[in-house]
């Protein structure tokens, strides 16, 4: 007897405290309010929230010296040509300091170059930042104590949500420190000069660390409860809202919805057609098509509910989506950089193709902040359409199967399936764009960015921890997977074309996102 997906009838006021989406909103809001309150009444020193992860060993400095000196020389020539005597003197002093190799002296000389402004200042800042970043500093107690305090605060705040969700709080409290430690480890490893030169960010380390554990020794049961990818990423995304200007969301959101409609219609149909060609049954086909075209897991769940499909097939689709996301979120940003695709186009591409919000954030962060923001907005535009898609699907399915069977679809599903944390994201952006004074916004930005990065790091570690490549082997019948992969490849190409047309300044002006 196969188990069927049901159209869940949850709703009413109690869902505000029982639904993961809403809890992410409250959690994000709580963190934002705490930061604003401590800024306003100086309760805690916000600068303490900024953990320092940069570290460069002495030998790494020595290795860089030649490269830096080569960058300084043309700047000296340029300044000489312009008759900027002061610039020449400072740059030469910096070169001498580099020759002597005393890090404190380099920091000082580079700091003086910073005050010149322009390109020399950028170089000066890079040299100063690297030379300042002594290895011992990241491991010093006041730096580590900030990490521990953030960890404890996160544990307390997130536990409230876990209790309300009715999950096992004891196991969560036991497991959370492990996940948090892995998040710290990823950020620490990524903070070294070598990976950051290669553009390898904490995202990659978080995935690697997570994957390494789950695919070798396996995840101990007591940690599992703290592997909450969705919960962490949604909370981080609500906080991200505070860092985005409202008009940026409107601009990119409008384009995002156009892109989403075109992606969903075309890719959905294409995948469905492929499935039929490959003789995959219709139930599977609907779930696969929704997963590829809309947004992975949540769309698969919604469509399974809409057609009251088989739960086993749903879990197959879910693991397919999760496993496929990992190589995509590493390879796509790499392609964006290697092919010189503009950041915003790249972001829109990721947002339109990657199937989970977490992977969009992870991949976007590998390109740049604007790319990540664009990706998230595009992703949200697509997510917002899950309900609409589920509604249309259920109508179609009822017609197909004959109206007698099952429940009658109602338009209520549009709201039920709407990702509620998107509302938190939008409200946060609204408050930070229009209501709070500019100074408050500017002065709390760093702290909020840091906290949001922690949530994201927790989510990325969790992605790694819950992805088991072995599950792929266990899957029976390669045809649905083949259809999924083919459709995904088509999705990647089609969305890239759309992203170029919409975000590349071809049809519309390039949105202004920083």
């Amino acid at each position: 007897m196969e188990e069927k997906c049901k159209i869940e009838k949850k709703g009413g006021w109690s869902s505000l405290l029982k639904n993961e989406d809403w809890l992410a909103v409250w959690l994000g809001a709580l963190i934002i309010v705490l930061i604003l309150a401590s800024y306003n009444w100086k309760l805690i020193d916000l600068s303490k929230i900024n953990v320092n992860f940069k570290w460069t060993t002495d030998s790494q400095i020595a290795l860089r010296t030649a490269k830096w000196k080569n960058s300084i020389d043309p700047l000296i020539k340029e300044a000489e040509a312009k008759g900027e005597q002061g610039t020449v003197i400072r740059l030469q002093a910096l070169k001498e300091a580099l020759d002597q190799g005393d890090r404190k002296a380099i920091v000082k000389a580079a700091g003086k170059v910073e005050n010149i402004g322009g390109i020399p200042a950028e170089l000066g800042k890079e040299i100063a930042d690297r030379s300042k970043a002594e290895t011992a500093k990241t491991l010093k107690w006041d730096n580590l104590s900030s990490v521990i305090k953030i960890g404890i605060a996160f544990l307390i705040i997130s536990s409230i949500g876990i209790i309300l969700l009715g999950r096992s709080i004891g196991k969560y409290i036991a497991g959370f420190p492990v996940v948090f430690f892995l998040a710290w480890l990823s950020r620490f490893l990524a903070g070294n000069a070598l990976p950051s030169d290669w553009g390898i960010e904490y995202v990659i380390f978080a995935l690697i660390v997570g994957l390494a554990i789950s695919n070798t020794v396996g995840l101990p049961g007591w940690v599992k409860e703290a592997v909450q990818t969705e919960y962490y990423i949604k909370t981080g995304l609500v906080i991200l809202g505070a860092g985005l200007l409202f008009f940026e969301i409107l601009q990119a959101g409008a384009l995002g919805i156009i892109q989403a409609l075109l992606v969903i219609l075309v890719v959905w149909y294409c995948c469905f057609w492929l499935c039929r060609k490959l003789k995959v049954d219709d139930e599977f086909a609907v779930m696969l098509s929704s997963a590829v075209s809309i947004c992975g897991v949540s769309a698969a769940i919604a469509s399974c509910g809409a057609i009251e499909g088989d739960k086993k097939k749903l879990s197959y689709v879910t693991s397919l989506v999760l496993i496929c996301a990992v190589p995509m979120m590493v390879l796509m940003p790499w392609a964006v950089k290697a092919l010189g695709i503009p950041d915003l186009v790249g972001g829109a591409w990721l947002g339109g193709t990657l199937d989970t919000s977490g992977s969009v954030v992870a991949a976007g962060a590998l390109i740049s902040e604007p790319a990540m923001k664009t990706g998230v907005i595009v992703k949200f535009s697509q997510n917002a359409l899950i309900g609409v898609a589920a509604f249309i699907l259920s109508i179609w399915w009822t017609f197909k199967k004959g109206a007698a069977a099952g429940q009658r679809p109602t338009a209520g599903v549009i709201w039920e399936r709407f990702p509620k944390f998107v509302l938190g994201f939008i409200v946060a952006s609204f408050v930070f764009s229009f209501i709070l004074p500019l100074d408050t916004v500017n002065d709390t930005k760093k702290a909020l960015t840091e906290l949001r990065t922690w949530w994201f790091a927790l989510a990325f570690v969790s992605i790694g921890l819950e992805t088991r490549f072995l599950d792929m082997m266990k899957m029976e019948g390669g045809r649905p997977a083949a259809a999924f992969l083919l459709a995904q490849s088509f999705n990647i190409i089609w969305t890239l074309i759309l992203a170029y047309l919409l975000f590349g300044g071809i049809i519309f002006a390039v949105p202004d996102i920083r």
Partner: protein
Amino acid sequence: MKSMLRTGFSVALAIMFLMSVGYAVDSKYSADTIKKVDEFKILKRDKKDMPESLPGVKNIKAEELKSWIDQKKKIVILDNRPADEFEKEHIPGAVRLNSDDLLDDSKKAEQAGLKKDDIIAAYCNGAKCWRSPAVSVMLQNLGYKNINWLRDGLPEWVKKGYPTAEGK
């Protein structure tokens, strides 16, 4: 549960409301001045250049300021940046008058020893820095008459190779 939720909601709203009201700007400034200062901050946020010139404020170049100093002309040089930047490097003889402080409290101008008819030269970190145009506009509003704006700020000064000072 419902009432708990509502309480939470109202507390959050109340905090936000308090914060938007508690925004301390000295009421001595006209609405127009506040608006201009906000415009500068928005330019800064968007990483754009400040306006080329400000009405009623004279633009000066580093050479001019240097010659005034050399001629021992009676001027007050105002550094509008935060303390740490000032301590790292500033134009010799400059007095620190931070734009944030002045915005919170207009008495900071007098406390810095400024007189209404002093010849003032305001600077910060160049064309993308909002502080010196903001201070110029605020001082104008407070009745200071001879305001000069070194728009290209400390970077221009440094490029010329003119001497600088460190510390408080």
